[in-house]
């Protein structure tokens, strides 16, 4: 019997679970996928918004501003890359200028610090590649970037280090309230029993709520397509460059990533299939066309990959955080600024539980720290040599594009939450994420996974299910 079951191991579920362990709860995380961070967390803009976007008084505004404030220290504790690079919302005409002025006021009302409107000559001093048509911009120095899936994996790992349990491939299809606890089951016979349930199921959180009879909201999947450029292009801009929101929508952004790549996107398209993460030629053309107006000199011939992610857009317009029945919490509709708000949502859950009568005290033996996942290449020669002396496999480079060593890959496979497939290793170590996209190293990583997981070479998959890398032996 667990105190609380968190359904969904995205970045929200991960940080909520971690916070619950901090307060001494016995936590189980139930994830339908073969790894954590597979939903919206895997593919989004990786931005910590300053907090001027959301309307005053909404949960989005309140939790965004708070999240933006505490994100840096959360990342520091969890060994997650974070950079306060600042953001610019750029305007092309007088109408845009008016919108930016409104955003400035809204931001101030929301409690965002340091906001100002910059004119073109001032923008050029801090961003030399700003688009030719840009006349002004809203500057938010507190805007930041972070790696969302790294944050999620680190938070789950830290929760596990503090006693939480993670069950993967757990597709929750029934939640039964049996007096003072819930029985949660999956079609393949998995069972978890917990006194409380937190629904952090992202795009599927409406389905989960319906399992306890709550049909007060629905979630639509909004697909966004992105292009990722080689690290050579990472310094095209230093700030995150947003487009001024207009009748045509919020538009795309151009941003460096914490790993030094350049990210361009997303589109916004409502779709019916909540797992449809394909890219389209039209979508990517649109991303290219819009981004070029905001920033000049984007080297689109240096694109190393394209992908799309699904945002969970709730039917109420705000985050949906409530208690539809005793001991059952919804945390749904966590679209943008969801990542930015996630650490604050975790605090908010604690507050709600307390208000509903749960006694929660901070554990003294809680360990908030976690070692960074991909760090070896950043060390000094002397530090590297000290590690290599103990662990020679740290001198064996597997992924040459991102300089990831065998030691790091082995440590990732042996560290919670453990990866079960090639993409899992990729997200944890960055191996295969560089410019050759795994051309050279994936056969080696398949070998390491096979050895470490004790499975046949043929059993290794790209991302779980039937995504096998090889289908048989030769000469068969």
């Amino acid at each position: 019997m667990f105190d609380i079951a968190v359904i969904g191991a995205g970045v929200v579920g991960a940080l909520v679970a971690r916070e619950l362990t901090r307060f001494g709860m016995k936590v189980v995380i139930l994830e339908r996928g073969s790894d954590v961070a597979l939903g919206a967390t895997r593919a989004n803009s990786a931005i910590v918004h300053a907090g001027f976007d959301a309307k005053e008084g909404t949960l989005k505004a309140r939790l965004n501003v708070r999240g933006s404030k505490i994100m840096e220290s959360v990342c520091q504790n969890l060994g997650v890359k974070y950079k306060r690079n600042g953001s610019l919302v750029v305007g092309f005409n007088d109408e845009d200028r008016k919108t930016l002025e409104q955003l400035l006021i809204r931001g101030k009302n929301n409690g965002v610090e340091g906001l100002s409107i910059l004119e073109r000559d001032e923008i050029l001093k801090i961003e030399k590649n700003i688009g030719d048509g840009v006349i002004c911009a809203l500057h938010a120095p507190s805007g930041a970037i972070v790696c969302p899936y790294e944050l999620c994996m680190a938070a789950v790992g830290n929760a596990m280090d503090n006693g939480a349990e993670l069950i993967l491939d757990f597709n929750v299809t029934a939640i039964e309230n049996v007096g003072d606890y819930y029985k949660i089951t999956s079609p393949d016979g998995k069972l978890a029993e917990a006194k409380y349930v937190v629904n952090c199921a992202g795009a599927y959180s409406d389905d989960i709520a319906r399992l306890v009879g709550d049909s007060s909201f629905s979630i639509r999947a909004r697909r966004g397509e992105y292009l990722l450029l080689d690290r050579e292009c990472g310094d095209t801009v230093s700030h995150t460059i947003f487009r001024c929101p207009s009748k045509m929508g919020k538009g795309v952004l151009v941003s460096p990533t914490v790993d030094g790549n350049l990210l361009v996107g997303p589109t916004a398209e409502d779709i019916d299939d909540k797992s449809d993460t394909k890219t389209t030629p039209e979508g990517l053309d649109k991303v290219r066309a819009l981004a070029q107006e905001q920033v000049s000199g984007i080297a689109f011939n240096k694109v190393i990959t394209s992908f799309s992610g699904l945002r969970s857009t709730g039917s109420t317009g705000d985050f949906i955080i409530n208690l539809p029945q005793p001991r059952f919490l919804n945390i749904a509709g966590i679209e943008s600024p969801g990542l930015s708000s996630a650490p604050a949502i975790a605090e908010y859950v604690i507050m709600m539980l307390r208000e509903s009568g749960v006694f929660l005290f901070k554990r003294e033996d809680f360990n908030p720290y976690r070692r960074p996942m991909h760090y070896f290449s950043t060390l000094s020669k002397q530090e590297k040599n000290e590690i290599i002396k103990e662990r020679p496999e740290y001198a064996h480079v597997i992924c040459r594009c991102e300089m990831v060593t065998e030691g790091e890959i082995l440590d990732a496979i042996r560290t919670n939450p453990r990866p079960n497939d090639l993409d899992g290793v990729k997200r944890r170590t960055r191996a295969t994420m560089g410019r050759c996209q795994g051309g050279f190293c994936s056969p080696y990583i398949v070998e390491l996974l096979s050895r470490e997981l004790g499975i046949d070479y043929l059993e290794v998959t790209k991302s779980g299910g039937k995504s096998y890398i090889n289908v048989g032996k030769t000469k068969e």
Partner: protein
Amino acid sequence: MNYDRKADLVIIGGGPAGMAAALAAREAGINDILILERDNELGGILRQCIHGGFGLHTFGEELTGPEYAYRYEKRVKEENIPYMLNTMVTELTPDRCVTAMNEKLGVFTVKAEAVILAMGCRERPKGALGISGTRPSGIYTAGTAQKFVNMKGYMPGREVVILGSGDIGLIMARRMTLEGAKVHAVCELMPYSGGLARNIEQCLNDYGIPLKLSHTVAEIHGKERLEGVTIVKVDENRRPIPETREYVKCDTLLLSCGLIPENELTKGAGISLDRVTGGAVVNGKRETECEGIFACGNVLHVHDLVDFVSDEAVIAGRSAAEYIKGKSNEKIKIKLQTDGKIRYTVPQIITELSDTTVYFRVSDVYKNAEILIEDGEEKLYSKKTLKLAPGEMESIKLTANMLSRVKSGEIKFSLKTGV
């Protein structure tokens, strides 16, 4: 920069280029050589190229890739040329400090009198091609598939479509067929193949595999494992023609869409690259703009025959030896320009008054064309040719006599068509 040891010549990469360069330098009298190789054996990519066709120019007989590599490896060992395996070079500085890492020595820096870059090339990945659709497993570059099949003994798939008609793609079409897979088509975006004519004959035609020119893969289908691809014909501007879309069921897509010289170290040393070749700009000695740093093989420009890699490596090896001994014959400076129909030349600059072979590629298929080399208005050289294709590297020998006649400091390579 602080260093842990010194060497006269450090060669980065122990593939065909690096080994041939080392042997040439040793023959020219350099004793203190160190080859740094990231893999666990010498030989580079040839180790997985188990097909024949190597060595016709160099040895006058047909060898497999591993056999060709072994001839060099054997000589490297006989000559006692030092090499380190499983050693990854992580940094090169303009003053020729090479930082590398291996299990035995950890991170160490070698200060070299001369450096030869021989890191080879990599394949263009799917992400760079902008194919839309899903991201299932079953999509590999042809070279990755070659590694699975030839080095590991595993089949990456059974129902195959190949995008791009580069040589590795053609070779893998045959290889997969021989291993019992069905290769449905090789799609090539361009109206001509990027591979050698002999490979189209021996790897596709002999096995009845269709080569679909002016075709590309428009969309990828399948959530977990690849389930199919949509292929589409393209017009003369390489734009897809929607009504020609066709679904092909397959579990594997192999990509052979170009090779990219691996010049991350080169760039790190601040050496400028030729935008067309993706390799360093070099003179006739294969010396980069950074004194004492030479380059050869696929890191300099992508070759179609390893025999030419070996030839180029000999030039780089000898030149590095001369540099170490303090010999310099630099007397002239002639820039080599091209007209676009001729895409590039290697070398790009000639600095010595001696016979120099210039290698080049054309940008399209040209029939009945005349290759012209001019110094301003004055014609230095011309040669009529029946057919030129982008997939086949050409060469012309410029004699010392010819070079001595150049007045403007610049010669232009161009192609006159319809002659």
